[in-house]
Every structure is written in structure tokens, then in C-alpha cells.
């Protein structure tokens, strides 16, 4: 029969032969040609494989020859491996040229002997190699001795090849020491037989030292180089290494060591002048640093100039001096810090000014150390104050840049729509420019300082100094002045300041009075100090009270208007003007007697609240989380948000104390209804209510007002509900009654109150309000249930209960509340919302799941396996991506193929991208999913690969791009 050429090829070359078929003569001829051709290919296959070209190094040739020898020893037709029949005689292992062998030396160490090799096992941790080549896998201390070298290891994989001329060591894993050299993975070393024990030359050690990045490492290597040079009598390198070593020690401010190093150099130098210089240098070091020399020189020059009346040249000289100091790099700051001790006051200020451009973070640490431990600290504190002021200025710029960037993140097509803003692109460009300019300016201002300075450490050191009575008053007042330059200080710092305000030394009290931090204890103490015996303290206290702006300090300031000291009177006037700004300072007494400042208090809080837009932290959250979706760096945003919230809370607390200690309650009740219609978030009313809740012991009148016993406006009644809400939960029944009020505003307020009280029994009453009511009441009720659920997570285990939340707003509110609470019980509910129709709800649920984290991955995976409907599986799969549980990678990859529903497969692909582990497993799974039968899955896999590769891959060539990348 006749076969075509392809079939004939298959017959000769393929796995299928057509032996049973009788071929025609033409075919037989073709087959015989093909078979001859096949012989050619077989001959090619039998040929030994030759390395491409010999490498430069000799051992490579040897290795190649050895490899060829191995191959020749393996006949092609049979199994090519000669298994390890190692001859063992007197612990001597030998392989013939056709053998390889695996030898176990100890339970943890094996040697793979290559052909024609010999190893003598001396102990479990020491072998001797006489010839050939072996691969060692050892653990624990181990030694291989050859004629040329001793190889010491701790635990590693390495290869040793011995030839008559020497020994080559190649490390695969771990580190190995050969003589004096240490080699790591991928490195190798050849040691000749008759070479001296391998020792690095002084020159090499010196070179290595120069390359070190770290001062300590440099010192170590220079010391080794010096030692080696001394051993070899290498004069050139004794001098070079010794000199460098001395310089390094100088930078480390270790004068004795530096002097020793210079002495070694001096002993070698024959030249008289050099010798003199070295001795002088060493002598100088004993007293001061190089920077000090510059400063002294500067002082001398200025003196000379003054004598010759050439004062105009002083600035020029000054610049020259600073330039030569600054040229020493950031390290020069250590010299300057040291110089702070000995210099005169003017020079100290100069140094402090210069330090702020030179100092880096370790420098600050040194300064703090100095402040806390050595005498003459005043210089250090001056410098620290200058530096911190500078740093604060940079931080203000940073904050401005952050703010601008934050605003910038809302300029874009999708975002502006979401917030109903009209944005033009030009505004975006302007913003971008501003951000960049601000960042540049801030960075320039910081010089060498890092963006985040460890302020707590600085404060700790300062407190120690302030509270230590054995330290002289100058130093303590200096430390207090450093404290004044910080814009945020903690409770402990306030305590220190309070103690300092009672100090017997007027100078300390004066400095302490300079701290203007909004804290009611501090205000009370400063008010006391307004009657201090020392003018300066009174003056400073009055100024600080003005800066703080507490209403409680007004009477004291009014009193200070009659102070005997002219300065204090003037300061009191200025401070009062600052505090009571809209009121004419001349009428201030009359105004105070009439109102006791209540309107001032409330207005001031009004401004604070307006700045923040939202009063309640949860309001803040919802607004924030909606925006977070568009933030460029969500983690940073979250941090910023937490910090802002903490600051807001502390300021609110201050204002609350102010109001409680100053305002009369009846006035506040009146305020519950004042100007409130302008305030969309009722923030002011809530604030007043919160204050009242704390002030009033008897709230029966308030309760009556809520019940509507007396005719009242809606605002006042709502305010009264808030008052009850901020108290303990005794008034739950009153609020629950208010839920059925005819006025929607009252119902919403009652919802808020019940949410705040957070009793799970109210949930049943709140639920009907979620279902049917005016929109604002429904939102408020949902939020209240969310708040209750956050405290009582079991509430959401009842599926019937949660199905009630029909509106997207309600679901979103509940998600945020649950996320904040972070309880795993809410996962099942959130999982279902993960596939909600509304995008905002999906986002909120994702956020909440990510926030819960922890073992949420396991819970979700369990739910996935048990879920009956595909929607539940989809939600669970998406949830695993949200909580970024990388332990679920393997089962997810598996499910990507086995899952019957395409929507769920797409969800799994998306989750794999979200988890973000770049493993080959994930890559292969996603690449395979690119061939899925459903486009939705293909698209999801593609976008997941995009996420993992951090780029936009062209869809057509995604395979190539992905495979060319490195995966773990």
C-alpha cells in the first residue's frame, strides 16, 4: 500500500510504526532513505556532548574533561548511571572513573563523590580529600582538608575539587571559610598546593575597607589591613591604613584609638615635618576635634580683623569657616555638637544655627544623649530647639502638601461625579504644582533630617532633664524652652510642665510658663502663675494664656489688666484682645459680667466643628471611607485619618472642659435651639448636649421636655434627646417612646440616641424605622443598628433580621459599623453584601472584611465550601481576596478550574490578583484561566495578572509578558 511522506516519517521517527502494513516499492525506497537519515540523527545522539568552548580558568578545563569522562563511561543504550558502590576501606572512600557515590558521613552530612575521587573520613566533622571532586552537603561545623587548603564551614552546600596543583572550592549555599577568605553562594576560590596559607594582602584589605559603607565596618577592615601590613612590614600600607583608621576613629569621637593609630603611622614616618604634624594632630585630638580647630581659627581671625578694624570681612570669614566644616559632610555635625561644650554663648547660637543644616537622625540621638547626661547641656538644648523649630516648619509644609494631595485625589472624572463637584482639569494641574513645590520646600528645610523624627524619644529625654532637681536651673529652663517649640505634646509632658511651674527658680517657672498647650490643667496652673511674684513669670503666663485662648482664663487676664508691671498689663491687653476678638477690649469687663463668656464658648466650638464638617466620629468615618476608595495610598490615608481623629478628640475634650467649667446650664439649654437650622449636621447641638449630659445631675426636667410635657420647639426637644443619649442607658424607654413621635426630626434624634446607648433590646424597636419611614430616619436607624451590632455581634447571626436592610444607604452604614467593630461574627453578613447590586455597598463590605482580617480567610473558605448558592460562593471567594489570606492560594487555584459557575470563577481569579502573591502556581492557574470558556473569567484572569505584574499587559501577548517575568 502507498503511504504519504508524513506517514512514512511517522513510521521511521514516530512512536507508531506501520510494521503490519505491506508497503509499495516507492515507499520502501523512501523508508530506507529515511532510515539512513535516522541513523545520522542517532549517530548525532550517540556523539558525546562537548562544552561550547573552554573557559579562561584552568579548572574549568579540568572539570569539562572530567565531565566528558563521566559521559564516556556511560554507554548510551543502558542505564547511564553507575550507582554509588563506593569502596570503603579504613574509612577511605574511593570511586573509580566510572562511579559516582553518595556517602553519609554523619546523620546530617553527606558527600557526593564524583568519578575518580577519594575522601578520607577522619571524624564526623572532618574529612580529608586527596583527589577528585566531591559535593558536600553538611550541617554544623565541618572541615575539609586538602593538600592545598583547609575549608571550614558552618552549614552549607559546596563543591571541592582537588587536582595535583591545588584545590578549587565552589560554594552553592551558605558561607565557607578557606584560610582567611570567606566565600558565599556562587563564589569560588582556587588555592595552589604550595601557596602560603591563603592570606589577603594588606592592599586588598585596605581596598575592601575603602568600599565599606558603614563606619564601624570601615574601622574593622582598616584595622585588619594595618595588622596585616605590620606583619608584612609593608610600610606604604601601614601609613595608609593607619592614617585612615585614625580618621575613622576621629569621626567616631574615639580620641584614644585615633591617637594610637596615628602613633603607629608616626613610628613609620621618617619625614620630620610629617612627624611633627602627626604628633601635633594626636596632641590636638586629646583636647578637641577638628571642627573645634576651625572654630578657634575663626575666633582668632575675627579678633585680628577687629584689631585691624576690618569688620566688613567678618561675614566672609564666617562663610569660609562654615564651608570648610560643612565639607566634612553630615559627620561634621558631631564635631559641632562636641564644640557646643566649650564655646562662648554667641558661638553656641551660631553653631546651633548651623547644626540644623548639618544634623541627621543619629546626630539628634547624640544631642539627646548629651542633653540627658553631660554637663553644659544648655548648648545642646539651644541646638535642639533650633532644630525642632526648623523641623516643625518643614512639617507644616508637609501637612500643607498632604492636604493639597488629598484634595488632588478628588480631582478626576469618576470622583468628582461621586461628590457632585464640578472640577476642571486646570485646577488639578495647579494642585499638582503646589504639592510638588511644597514637598520640595519641606525637603530643603529638613536638610539631612528624616521625614519622621522620633519626637517621643526627644520628649522623654527632655522630661528627664526637667524633672531632675539636681540639674541647674539654666539647663532645665533650656529644656523647657525646647518643649515650647513642639506643637503636640502628651500628658506626661504636661505633667512635667506643671511641676516646673511650681519650681522655686523663677527662670524655670518663666520657661515653663511659655508652654501654650490647650490643656485645662495647664490653664488652671497658668492662671495661678498670673499672680506670681516674679514679673517675668507673670508676663510669660499672660502671653501663654492668650495663645491658648481659654475662656476660663478671662477673669485672670482681666485682673492682670491692673498689674503693677507695665509689661504684664500690655501683655494682658493683647491676650484678651486675642481671646474675645469680636468684642471691643474696652467693654470686656461689662461683657464678661453679663454673659460669663458662654456665647464665646459655643461659637468657638462651632468654628472647630465647621472645620471638621462632622461631629460624631462615625460620621467622620463614613465620609472618610467613601473618599478612601479613591485615595492613592489607602494605608497612609488611614493613618492620617486616625491621627486627625485623635487630635480632634483632644481638642474637643479641651473645649468640653471649657464649657463645663464656665457656662451656666440654663444658658446651654437655651442654646440647644439657637441657630441650629444652619447647622446641617446638628454638630453644635450635639456638643452642647454632650456637655449638658455631663453637667446635669438631675435630668427629670429634660425627660419632661422630651416627652413634650411643656410646649417646646422641635430643636429643643431633639437637643434634649441628645442630652439623654450622652448619659448612661437609664433613659432607653424615653427614647424608644420618642421613636414613635409624629415629628421625623425627633424620630431621627431618638435613633441616634438609641444607637449611642447601644442596648441590643432597642434593635427590635429600630427595625420598623429602617423599613418604613422618611429617608433620614431610615438612615439614622440603620446606623444605630450598626452601632448596636458593633457592640453586640450576635445580632447579625439572625439571617431574617439582616434581610430587612433594604436600602443601600442602610447597608453601607451597617458595613462601616461592623468593620469598625471588627468581629468575625459579621463575616457571613458582609460576605453576602460583597455581591450586592450597589457598588457603594460592595466597597463598604470589602473594606469591612479587610478591616476584620484575622482568621476571616478560614471562615470564608469554610463558607465557600458549604455554600449552596453560587452567590454565596462568589461572595466568599471575593471576601478571601479582601482579607488577603495567602494560605488559601492553593485551594483557590484548584477551584479556579473545578468551580462550575463562571461568576464564581471570575471572583476567584480576582481574589488571586488581590492576594498579590507572585507564585508560579498562581501564574499558571491564571494563564490557564485565560483560556476559560467564559469571557468574564478570561477578563478577570487578565486583570488579575495585570495587578500581579503591576502594569497594563496587552491582552494579545499577555502570555509572553507574564512568562518573561520572574515568579517565585
Amino acid at each position, binding site marked *: 500500500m502507498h503511504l504519504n511522506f508524513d506517514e512514512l516519517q*511517522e513510521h521511521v521517527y514516530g512512536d507508531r510504526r506501520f510494521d503490519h502494513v505491506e508497503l509499495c516499492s516507492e515507499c520502501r525506497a523512501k523508508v530506507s*532513505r529515511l532510515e539512513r537519515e535516522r541513523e545520522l540523527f542517532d549517530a548525532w545522539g550517540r556523539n558525546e556532548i562537548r562544552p561550547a568552548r573552554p573557559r579562561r580558568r584552568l579548572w574549568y578545563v579540568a572539570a569539562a574533561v572530567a565531565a566528558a569522562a563521566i559521559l564516556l563511561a556511560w554507554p548510551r543504550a543502558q542505564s547511564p548511571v553507575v550507582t554509588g558502590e563506593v569502596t570503603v576501606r579504613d574509612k577511605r572512600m574511593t570511586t573509580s572513573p566510572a562511579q559516582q557515590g553518595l556517602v553519609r558521613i554523619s546523620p546530617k552530612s553527606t558527600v557526593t563523590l564524583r568519578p575518580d575521587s577519594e575522601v578520607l573520613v577522619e571524624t564526623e566533622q572532618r574529612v580529608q580529600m586527596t583527589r577528585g571532586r566531591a559535593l558536600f552537603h553538611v550541617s554544623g561545623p565541618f572541615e575539609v582538608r586538602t593538600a592545598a587548603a583547609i575549608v571550614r564551614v558552618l552549614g552549607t552546600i559546596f563543591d571541592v575539587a582537588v587536582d595535583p596543583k591545588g584545590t578549587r572550592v565552589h560554594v552553592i549555599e551558605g558561607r565557607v571559610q578557606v584560610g582567611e577568605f570567606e566565600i558565599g553562594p556562587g563564589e569560588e576560590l582556587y588555592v595552589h598546593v604550595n601557596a602560603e596559607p591563603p592570606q589577603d594582602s594588606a592592599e586588598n584589605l585596605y581596598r575592601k575597607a575603602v568600599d565599606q559603607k558603614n563606619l564601624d565596618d570601615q574601622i574593622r577592615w582598616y584595622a585588619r589591613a594595618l595588622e596585616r601590613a605590620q606583619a608584612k612590614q609593608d610600610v606604604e600600607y601601614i601609613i595608609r591604613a593607619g592614617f585612615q583608621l585614625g580618621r575613622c576613629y576621629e569621626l567616631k569621637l574615639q580620641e584614644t584609638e585615633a591617637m594610637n593609630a596615628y602613633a603607629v603611622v608616626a613610628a613609620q614616618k621618617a619625614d620630620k615635618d610629617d612627624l611633627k604634624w602627626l604628633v601635633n594632630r594626636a596632641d590636638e585630638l586629646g583636647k578637641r576635634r577638628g571642627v573645634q580647630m576651625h572654630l578657634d581659627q575663626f575666633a582668632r581671625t575675627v579678633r585680628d580683623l577687629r584689631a585691624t578694624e576690618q569688620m566688613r570681612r567678618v561675614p566672609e570669614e564666617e562663610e569660609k569657616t562654615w564651608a570648610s566644616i560643612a565639607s566634612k559632610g553630615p559627620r561634621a555635625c558631631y564635631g559641632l555638637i562636641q564644640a557646643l561644650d566649650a564655646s562662648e554663648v554667641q558661638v553656641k547660637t551660631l553653631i546651633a544655627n548651623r547644626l540644623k543644616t548639618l544634623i541627621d537622625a543619629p546626630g539628634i540621638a547624640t544631642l539627646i544623649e548629651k542633653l540627658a547626661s553631660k554637663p553644659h547641656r544648655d548648648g545642646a538644648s539651644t541646638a535642639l530647639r533650633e532644630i525642632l523649630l526648623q523641623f516643625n516648619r518643614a512639617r507644616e509644609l508637609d501637612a500643607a502638601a498632604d492636604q493639597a494631595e488629598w484634595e488632588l485625589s478628588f480631582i478626576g472624572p469618576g470622583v468628582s461625579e461621586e461628590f457632585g463637584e464640578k472640577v476642571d482639569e486646570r485646577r488639578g494641574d495647579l494642585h499638582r504644582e503646589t504639592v510638588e513645590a511644597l514637598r520640595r520646600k519641606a525637603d530643603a528645610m529638613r536638610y539631612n533630617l528624616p521625614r519622621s523624627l522620633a519626637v517621643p524619644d526627644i520628649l522623654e529625654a527632655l522630661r528627664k532633664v526637667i524633672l531632675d532637681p539636681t540639674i541647674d536651673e539654666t539647663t532645665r529652663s533650656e529644656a523647657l524652652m525646647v518643649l515650647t517649640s513642639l506643637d503636640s505634646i502628651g500628658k506626661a509632658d504636661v505633667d512635667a510642665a506643671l511641676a516646673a511651674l511650681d519650681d522655686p527658680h523663677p527662670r524655670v517657672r518663666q520657661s515653663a510658663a511659655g508652654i501654650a498647650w490647650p490643656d485645662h490643667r495647664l490653664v488652671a496652673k497658668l492662671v495661678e502663675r498670673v499672680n506670681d511674684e516674679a514679673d517675668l513669670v507673670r508676663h510669660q503666663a499672660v502671653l501663654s494664656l492668650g495663645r491658648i485662648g481659654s475662656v476660663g482664663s478671662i477673669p485672670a487676664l482681666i485682673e492682670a489688666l491692673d498689674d503693677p508691671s507695665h509689661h504684664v498689663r500690655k501683655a494682658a491687653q493683647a491676650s484678651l484682645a486675642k481671646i474675645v476678638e469680636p468684642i471691643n477690649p474696652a467693654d470686656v469687663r461689662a461683657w464678661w459680667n453679663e454673659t460669663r463668656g458662654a456665647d464665646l464658648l459655643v461659637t468657638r466650638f462651632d468654628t472647630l466643628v465647621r472645620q471638621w464638617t462632622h461631629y460624631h466620629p462615625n460620621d467622620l468615618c463614613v465620609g472618610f471611607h467613601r473618599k478612601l476608595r479613591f485615595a492613592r495610598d489607602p494605608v497612609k490615608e488611614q493613618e492620617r485619618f486616625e491621627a486627625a481623629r485623635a487630635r480632634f478628640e483632644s481638642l474637643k475634650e479641651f473645649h468640653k472642659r471649657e464649657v463645663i467649667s464656665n457656662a451656666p446650664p440654663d444658658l446651654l439649654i437655651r442654646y440647644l435651639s439657637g441657630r441650629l437650622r444652619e447647622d446641617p449636621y446638628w454638630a453644635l447641638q450635639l456638643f452642647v448636649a454632650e456637655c449638658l449630659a455631663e453637667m446635669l445631675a438631675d435630668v427629670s426636667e429634660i425627660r419632661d421636655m422630651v416627652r413634650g410635657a411643656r410646649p417646646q420647639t422641635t430643636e429643643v426637644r431633639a437637643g434634649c434627646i441628645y442630652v439623654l443619649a450622652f448619659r448612661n442607658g437609664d433613659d432607653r424607654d424615653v427614647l424608644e417612646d420618642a421613636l414613635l413621635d409624629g415629628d421625623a426630626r425627633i424620630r431621627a434624634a431618638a435613633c441616634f440616641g438609641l444607637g449611642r446607648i447601644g442596648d441590643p433590646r432597642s434593635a427590635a424597636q429600630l427595625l420598623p424605622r429602617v423599613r418604613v419611614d422618611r429617608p433620614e430616619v431610615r438612615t439614622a436607624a440603620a446606623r444605630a443598628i450598626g452601632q448596636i451590632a458593633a457592640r453586640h455581634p450576635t445580632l447579625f447571626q439572625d439571617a431574617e433580621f439582616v434581610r430587612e436592610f433594604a436600602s443601600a444607604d442602610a447597608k453601607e452604614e451597617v458595613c462601616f459599623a461592623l468593620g469598625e467593630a471588627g468581629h468575625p461574627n459579621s463575616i457571613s453578613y458582609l460576605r453576602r453584601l460583597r455581591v450586592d447590586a450597589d457598588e457603594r455597598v460592595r466597597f463598604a463590605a470589602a473594606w469591612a472584611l479587610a478591616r476584620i482580617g484575622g482568621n476571616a480567610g478560614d471562615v470564608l473558605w469554610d463558607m465557600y465550601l458549604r455554600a449552596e448558592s453560587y452567590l454565596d460562593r462568589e461572595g466568599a471567594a471575593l471576601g478571601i481576596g479582601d482579607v488577603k489570606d495567602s494560605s488559601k492560594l492553593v485551594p483557590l487555584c484548584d477551584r479556579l478550574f473545578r468551580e462550575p459557575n463562571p461568576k464564581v470563577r471570575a471572583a476567584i481569579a480576582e481574589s488571586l490578583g488581590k492576594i498579590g502573591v507572585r507564585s508560579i502556581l498562581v501564574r499558571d492557574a491564571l494563564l490557564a484561566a485565560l483560556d476559560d470558556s467564559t469571557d468574564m473569567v478570561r477578563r478577570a484572569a487578565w486583570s488579575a495578572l495585570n495587578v500581579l505584574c503591576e502594569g497594563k499587559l496587552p491582552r494579545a501577548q499577555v502570555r509572553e509578558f507574564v512568562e518573561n517575568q520572574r515568579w517565585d
Partner: protein
Amino acid sequence: MSMSKEKPWLGHVSEAFSQLILAHYAGVYRMGLSILRNAHDAEEVCQEAFLKAYEHYDTYDASRPFKTWVYTIAYRLILNRMRDKRSERKALTETAPRAASPIDVSDRAELSEMAEKLDGLIRELPPEDQLLLHYRFRDDLKFGDIAEITRSTEAAVRVRFFRLLGRIRSDFQGAG
């Protein structure tokens, strides 16, 4: 065999695994050497392949031959390694006409000489193709096994193999 995730010192390897290594070391070594043409690189590939095999032994499906599994690992490693060196290598002309007539091997005396020439041609091929020939003529692997190693299908391997033969023929005859 202990499946600890510690560093896989081969010292801890059970006898069974060392037997596996000894049985397949040479095959993997030759595979590496045939492409990388450098004993040192080939050895490194071997070691890396067996270390990987040991590390991921838990993912090995025991119903399949160990040989193809470890070959699969080695195949990836070799190709990865070659990818770094690829710039040195000429790509085979895609437009080379496919010769249908076999290479004329009438004189057996010239066989070794022709084999040399063939070796020269094969060296110019992309590493994947070289490996394919290697598997077929040196390791005598079936197309099914090759497909498993290269993560492809048997039909695709077969088509690639015959297309490759055609190219070699035309190159061989073109080179005189």
C-alpha cells in the same frame, strides 16, 4: 520521608530519595550539558533541579514517573538559564523552506563527519528545539512523555518535531 520545610540538606534525604537522585542525575546532567554546553552550568542545573524536586516533593503525583517530573523541573530551569543568554543565539529563519526529501546518507563512512555537521546546525536552534531532539534521540523518550515534560500536548510535540526535522533537512541541504 519527612516533609519538613526546613532547608533541604540532602543529608536529611531518605535513602529512597538519594536512590532517585542517583538514578536520574546523569539524565538531567546530559540534558543540561546538551543545551548549556558547559559542565559547570549543567551541574548547577542538576543540583538546582534536585533541590527543587526535594523541596516540592509533596506536590509530586506518585502515580506518574519520577523521571518526567524531575525532567519537567530541569526543563524549566534550563530554559530560564538560556533565556539570559539568548541574545548570543541566532534565531532560525522562520521562512526556511520545508524540505520533503530526507538527507542523503548513502556513504556510511561519512556518517560521523555528517553527524558533526548536524551538531553544528542543531546548536544554532532555539533551546526548546534542541531539547526536543535531545529527548527524542538521546533519551529515547516517547512523544507523550516529552509533552508532559514541556507541558504541551502530544499532538503539538509531534507536529513540532516533524516541522523541526523539515527545517534541519533544508538547512542541512542548503549548507551543502
